[in-house]
Every structure is written in structure tokens, then in C-alpha cells.
């Protein structure tokens, strides 16, 4: 695989990029913080990535730069057949409720930016005979909850987009994997109360890598979250009104 990873310096993205590197895939790290990208590139190179790991600038808030980011990855690896997006914006609901600018930034990055990037990648992959697009959505997009529907709706939109992308480009050999992590213990969720069935980044990464290899359209990680979300989706609205979570 020749994979461009957006968000590979931290959390689940870091864990997934390491699995790719350790089995000898080529990786390019795309993101905003050049210094962090460089440190993670050194990590992946030392862990066995094919060829030196390159870095490039990509900010989900700047769609004008997406083409250049993908070009840089393509050029560095002599080809590009996978895009992984684990980067996303996250904030506590209370910080989003009263700050429209902050809310807009989150919605723009998580939905608009990510969708535009993936659409662009799908066109490229289709024109060259195929590829894999693996994007981290969230179980928060499966059912609205009063305590995180703002973040959740950005992921709900993303999940529907990814489903459609997979349908639209499937016959041109573009495989789309929508990852829906449950609660995972990363720096992003530090300080939040840890619910039951919380996962570790490494475990999630292993599940996701298998899904990428197989082209599984939707993958829950840890897998138990498929059942949990099935149950939550079936709860009638009057129950969702009463529960406080």
C-alpha cells in the first residue's frame, strides 16, 4: 500500500500508521504541525516503513490545499493508492453551544473539509484504476444524543457521505471504509469520564487495518460497539428524551 495519512501523528492515526509502517507499506504523513509530522515520520521510518516517510501540509480547514497535499504524497511515494483520514476537530459540547465560530470550525473540518478531500481522492483513484479511502467517523454519528449532537451531526453527515462515496465509486474499484470508533482512550478524550467498553488505539488500529485490506464498508472499533449502537439506535425517541447521556 502507498498510503497518505491525515492525522497520523496522534492517537488512533498514529497507531494505524505504525501498523502500516511495520508491515512495510509506504506512508506519507499529511497535517498541520510540521514539527510533529517530522517526529512521527522519523518514528515510522525507524519502524520499517518502505522508503523514507515524507510529510506534507494539509489542513482540513483549507480545501484549496488538498490537491497539493495529495500531489506531494503521490510524488514522495511514486504513487498513491490509499488515503486515511483520522484527523478531526473535537470539542466539548458546552464549548460549541455558545460559540458559533467554534461550532462552524468544527463542522467545516469534520464534514465539509473531510468530504471534499475524500471526493477529490476518489476521483484520482478512480482515474488510476482504484484505491482505498479509510476515514474515521464516529459512533456519535449513529444516533443523536443531547450531550454531543453537535459533534455527532458532523460525523453523521460524514458517515452518510462515505456510504454514498462507496456506492458511487465501487465499480471503479475505489473502496471506502467508514470507521466508527466507540470511546477510545486517547489524548483527545483525556479528562472525559471513561465509559464501559472503552478501547485502546492499538486494538482499534488492528481492526481498521483488517477492514482496509478487505474493503469492509463500515467497521466499528472495538467491535462490541456495533452491538451497543444497534441497541441505542433502536431506542424510541421518548427514551432518548429521558436519558441524560
Amino acid at each position, binding site marked *: 500500500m502507498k498510503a497518505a495519512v491525515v492525522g497520523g501523528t496522534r492517537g488512533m492515526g498514529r497507531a494505524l500508521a505504525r501498523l502500516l509502517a*511495520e508491515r512495510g507499506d509506504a506512508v506519507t504523513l499529511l497535517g498541520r504541525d510540521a514539527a510533529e509530522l517530522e517526529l512521527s515520520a*522519523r*518514528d515510522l521510518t*525507524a519502524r520499517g516503513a518502505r522508503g523514507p516517510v515524507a510529510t506534507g501540509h494539509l489542513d482540513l480547514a483549507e480545501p484549496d490545499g488538498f490537491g497539493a497535499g495529495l500531489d506531494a504524497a503521490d510524488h514522495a511515494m511514486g504513487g498513491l493508492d490509499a488515503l486515511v483520514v483520522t484527523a478531526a476537530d473535537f470539542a466539548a459540547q458546552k464549548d460549541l453551544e455558545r460559540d458559533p465560530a467554534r461550532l462552524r470550525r468544527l463542522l467545516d473540518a469534520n464534514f465539509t473539509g473531510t468530504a471534499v478531500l475524500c471526493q477529490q481522492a476518489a476521483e484520482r483513484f478512480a482515474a488510476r484504476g482504484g484505491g482505498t479511502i479509510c476515514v474515521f467517523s464516529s459512533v456519535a454519528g449513529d444516533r443523536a444524543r443531547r450531550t454531543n449532537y453537535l459533534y455527532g451531526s458532523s460525523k453523521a453527515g460524514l458517515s452518510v457521505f462515505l456510504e454514498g462515496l462507496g456506492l458511487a465509486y465501487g465499480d471503479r474499484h475505489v473502496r471506502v471504509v467508514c470507521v466508527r470508533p466507540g470511546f477510545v482512550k486517547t*489524548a483527545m478524550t483525556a479528562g472525559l469520564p471513561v465509559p464501559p467498553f472503552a478501547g485502546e488505539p492499538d486494538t482499534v488500529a488492528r481492526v481498521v487495518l483488517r477492514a482496509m485490506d478487505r474493503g469492509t464498508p463500515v467497521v466499528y472499533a472495538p467491535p462490541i460497539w456495533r452491538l451497543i449502537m444497534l441497541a441505542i439506535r433502536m431506542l424510541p425517541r421518548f427514551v432518548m428524551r429521558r436519558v441524560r447521556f
Partner: protein
Amino acid sequence: MGGLSIESVSGWGRRPVARAAVERPEHLLLPRDGRPVVARGLGRAYGDAAMPATPGARVLETVRADRVLAFDQGSGRLTCEAGLSLAEVLRIFLPRGWFPPVTPGTRFVTVGGCVACDVHGKNHHRDGTFGAFVERLVVQVADGRMVECGPARERELFLATVGGMGLTGLITEVTLRLQPAESGWMLVETEPLAGLGAMLDGLRDAAKDWQYTVGWIDCLARGATLGRGILMRGRHATRGEAPAGPAPEPKRLAVPLDAPEWLLNPGLMRAFNTGYYRMHAGRPGGSARIVPYQGFFYPLDAIGGWNRLYGRRGFLQYQCVVPRAAGAAAVGRLLERLGAAGAASFLAVIKDCGPESDAYLSFPLEGPTLALDLPYRGAATEELVHELNAIVIAVGGRVYLAKDAVTRAEDFARMVPRLAEWRRVREKWDPERRFRSAQSVRVLGDPA
């Protein structure tokens, strides 16, 4: 985001326990607030070394800062962030023919922790401590500067940081030399020895020809059999000696809950110790076996959460070293005192250390070291430690801060002749005592 979470933390001995504001950043950086902080790795220090100085104070857990920054296959030189574990070093680099130069009895420790405790292993008599293989550290000091130090650069800061228990600054990056190993297999010989004198002689004898030596002693044996045990000596198996394929990971068991205290009664301990001795004594003597490195270096790593076997009240680990001249007599007095107290322990570990390092607070000195577990039974157990300390101080020995939970400040000062030098260097880099721990409050008199 770097969120804080309020958690209960303890050392591996599971006591004491305190609340702490724990931060687990992916990139190590001191918080800007200037408040006291202690770094913590994988939490394998037994006592209070990585515990907050006051309840609720900041603990900076390094385990997510675990990137490999450079590796040179030709020389084995590794540069990594401080939170990388030895387990990861082994997983990544053993297949490429490289092994940690020094390893403690668990691989679930961070490289930063190995530096801060200046850990030693079964090869101390030959290779010295972990710090001997460290070429460069990046330390974020109290005023926020990132300072590079090493044996020839900012040497004082280096010597104060190696073995300095994280009290001179935040170790963020380490460059060290790994040692070549042709395989993940070990060639090991075991020999039963009937008493303490034979054990200490055996360890010294084996030290001449073997890279790794250690003794397991039955610390419940009394009288003529006092100090009887099993001597183990080993070295890395060559490619020709090793079986095909990598050394297999042992099946990991886990202790699912706290054991009841009656489980570890003296009777059971005695049976275990005797059984272990007989098992090895029954083996044909001197015959070499080839075993996976995991079982040789890390027998307890196969049992997840083995510290829960000591029950809810936890345990103390006691490790001391005494000068060679004091040798057998001092170790004998320690064992007799332990026996008289009926302080049951699983096997005790004995090892013959080589020359001490230049690092001011480094633990090992030339002579025998003894390590054992003491189930915590309240004030009596602490009192026993003070009595053992008195024996150690009388002969010019010291205890190991990575294990310690109860040693008094005045006793520690009498154990460590280079403490004043270390304090002077620390004063230069951290006059406000920004880096402090429950242990530094206890043994160094830091402000609580």
C-alpha cells in the same frame, strides 16, 4: 487537548495510594503553570517514586510519548522519546539483532524510567547500569528550557539526572546504545547451592565467565541452610545454538482480583520456596538449556497484575546493596532478621553487583544486593524496613529508591555519600523544587 484526569495512582506495590491530576500527552512538554510535577512511566517503581508530592498534584505520564526518533542498524544507536517501553524496544529491534543493553526484571518499563532509576540487571557485574549506555539526554528543566546533556556535555546535569528519579527535570528524549544479540534465546545453566556462602561464592565465580548471573534464594530457610538457593547464569544464545524462529511469547495469565490476605500465609510461602528449590535441585546440575529470553529476564511479566497476589493492602519491595567487604555476614544478618520477623516472601533475589557508576544517586555499588517482597501488614512492616536499613547503614550499604516506600530522610542521607553533590546540581537547575514526588518529600525533605 492535553486534558487532565483525576485518578488514583500508586506504585507497583499498590501502597500508598493517592489522588493525582494525571496528564498523558503525546508530546512531552511541561505544563506552563509552573506548579509541581512528577513524571511517571509505566508505574513499575514499587514505592512512591512516581507519586504526586501532595494529593491532587500533577503527574505527567510519559507512555504516549513513545516515538522512535532514530535508529542506526550498524551501531545499535537508538534515539527515542522517553515513554517508549523496553517491551517495544524488544518487539521492534530484537528481530533486527539488537537487545536492551541493561534490563530490569520487567520489560514493562519506559526508557525514561530506566534512566531516572539508573536500573541495573543480571549483567551489572560486567556491564554496569543503564546509564552507562546513555549517550545523550534531552531534559526539559524547571525554567522550561530543553537542555541536552551527556557524559561529555552538561556532565553534572547528566550525572544528576541518571538515577535522579526525575527530580532534575523532565527527561523527554534518550539516545542509547543497544547491544547486539544473535537471537531471542538464552543459554542458561542453573545450580542449586546449599547455603549463603556458597551462593555468594557461586555468583562471583560465575561473574568471570557469564554475562548474566542471578540467584534466587529461599529466604525462609534457617540455620545451616540459610541463604540456600538456585544460581542461574546465562548468555545470549548464538545463531547456531538457537532453535529456528523467534523466541515464543509466553502465554499471559492475569490475576483477575485482589487475593485474600490469608492466601500468602507463611506456610504457603515456605511450601513455595521449598518446592522451587527442590524443583531446580532435582535438575541435572550444570547442564545448559536454551530458553526464550522472556522467561529468563521477565518471569513475572507472564502474570498480568501479579502485584494483586499480595492482597488489598499491597506490599513493600525491599532492595539493598552492601559493600563486598561486608558481604556474607551482612546479608546473613538481613536474612536472619527477616526470618525472625516471619515476614513471608516469595523468592528473594540475590546478585553480585560490579563497580558503582559516576551518577550521584545511582544505586548499585560493588557487592551483593538482595531484593524481596514484604506483604504490607501495617506499622510492623515499616518498622522491619527501618531495622533492615540500620543493618545496611552500619556496613555502608544503601537501598534502591525505585523500590523504596518507607525509608526515612535521615537514614537515606547516611546511605548516600554523594547526596550533597547531587543536591548542589539540583539546586542549580531546579531551585524551586518544581520536580518533586511523594518520595522526594519523604527522603529528601522537599516541601510538601
